[in-house]
């Protein structure tokens, strides 16, 4: 029971991060391997405002989100645009964007280490436990989960009930056809990329309330987000949420029952199963 609830709480935050990556890869077609670094940046912003100004991490989200949106928009416009223009095909763009985002991620880690040092950072925010069905759970995990659920819900509504959201989904399905019906594909892609980065950074702020992070941990979260997106199916909101919960549960189960040092191995086990049996995603239709 403990495992179930802790796993779901963790999975909720994972869902938010993976949703960010899903927007970037599924819509903007950029395989962003600097995603984890954006998460660490969001975490660091929350840490900094909390220790320096006693601002609650939940309030910090209010400025982390627009700031990350802006930063990612600029990254897309200035750094990634030349690659998109240069690429002859999707495969070429994939290789280029993988290398370029790696470069960005590494440069970012380097800057973080140079300015703030390589130490772990954590702070104590609402660490008190509360009782749910006979067991205690830390309040900060529950708040992070609630915030993730609210944000995911808003995103879902926006994607499925608004005009720009529909445009985003159209580009995800087929960029060429979206262009034909009068959607500015590049603008929508930039929007999706920026929104995705913003979601990831917010996920980072939330995670920092209950996990200890350091400047170079980003790649681990990139890995998890990628596994979730592949498991859930690229561009599939519902699939990503289910996949995030599965990963959260599996990691928690392995950490509690076997060894906390094996969480990545657990993620890999799931990854291999997905690759062998459902490479098109949990709810995806097999391609011929």
């Amino acid at each position, binding site marked *: 029971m403990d495992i179930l609830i802790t796993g779901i709480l963790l999975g909720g935050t994972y869902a938010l991060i993976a949703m960010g990556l899903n927007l970037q890869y599924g819509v903007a077609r950029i*395989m962003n*391997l600097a995603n984890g670094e954006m998460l660490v940046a969001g975490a660091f912003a929350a840490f900094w405002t909390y220790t320096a100004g006693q601002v609650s991490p939940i309030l910090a989200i209010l400025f982390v989100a627009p700031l990350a949106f802006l930063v990612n928009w600029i990254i897309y416009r200035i750094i990634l645009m*030349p*690659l998109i223009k240069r690429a002859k095909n999707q*495969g070429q763009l*994939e*290789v*280029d964007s*993988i*290398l*370029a985002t*790696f*470069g*960005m*991620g*590494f*440069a*970012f*880690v*380097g*800057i973080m*280490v*140079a300015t703030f040092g*390589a130490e772990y950072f954590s702070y104590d925010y609402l660490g008190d436990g509360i009782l749910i069905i006979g067991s205690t759970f830390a309040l900060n995990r529950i708040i992070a989960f609630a915030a993730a659920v609210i944000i995911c819900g808003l995103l879902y509504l926006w994607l499925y009930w608004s005009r720009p959201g529909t445009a985003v989904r159209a580009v995800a399905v087929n960029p060429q056809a979206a262009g034909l019906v009068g959607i500015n594909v590049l603008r929508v892609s930039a929007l999706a990329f920026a929104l995705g980065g913003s979601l990831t950074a917010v996920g980072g702020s939330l995670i920092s309330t209950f996990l200890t992070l350091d400047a*170079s941990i980003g*790649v*681990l979260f*990139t*890995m998890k987000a*990628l*596994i979730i997106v*592949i498991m859930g199916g690229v561009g599939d909101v519902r699939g990503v949420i289910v996949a995030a919960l599965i990963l959260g549960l599996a990691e928690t189960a392995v950490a509690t029952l076997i*060894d906390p*040092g*094996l*969480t*990545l*191995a657990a*993620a*890999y086990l799931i*990854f*291999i199963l997905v*690759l*062998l049996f459902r*490479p098109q995603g949990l709810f995806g239709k097999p391609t011929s």
Partner: protein
Amino acid sequence: MTSRETRTLVIAVILFGLAALLPFSGNGYYISIGVTIAMYVVLSTSWALFSGPTHYISLATAAFYGLGTMIVATGIEMVPYVVLLLISAVAGAVMAALVGLATLRLSGVYFVIFTLGLAEMIRQLVSWLQNNLGGSRGLYVLTDLTEEHIYWELLALAGFVFLIGWWIGRSRLGFAMRIIGNDETVAAHCGINTARSKILLFMVSGMVAALVGALLAPRWTYIEPNIAFSPLLSFEVVIMALLGGTKRLWGPLVGVIPFTILLEVIEANYPSQTILVLGIAFLLIVYLVPHGVVGRLEQSFAKFRKGGN
């Protein structure tokens, strides 16, 4: 053999002969850098054997390398070193085959993602096994091998990799790889078993990387999983190979030598900035020399000849 090939072979043999003389300089610092350069030459050349024609970016080098190192470290007390080398090579090939079977049948992205976390995942597994099977985390590799020996071994392996690369380039497999790299659908329609070809080539690459790890184990003397599975190694190898260029067999060589020296300087003077340098190197490669220095030079050369006529 055409006269051109004979000439290339003679030049290559002479260069190898010259490189083999380095330990006689007696200068420990040069020999040490020589070992590092030889290591990166083997790793990035074998990396380019697979990733060059397929454009699949493998980030698994550290995983294979660490596997080889750990096999030697675990078995050195019980089994002769030469046997361990063989075991490492086989283990590297088997692991590459397994990774290939899981991912290479699908699109390239899955492969990149899978290899990205592979070294870290195996490190976790090895640490866990060591903790639970009563082994100690730190292992000692005590042999009579000196840096000079390691250098010559690596040089021999480099020669072997170049020969294999040359042979693959002429073989049916190499031809198949070039078609796959240009257009995988076309390759499949020509009747090429694309997955099998890719897996075979990845096995060669994995085998060599595991062997390099095994050869370098005696250099460190004290080994634990955190040392064996160095996360940055995979990225350094990718940068060096891409910097040089992967179209030619000797392309990576052009990237390895300057970049190894740069890394040495950075590590000696600004140890915490290595990762920043790697990041900048990635960006510079993507934006300025997407086909490597060799590709860029060949382009300029072709343009110059065109302009001359």
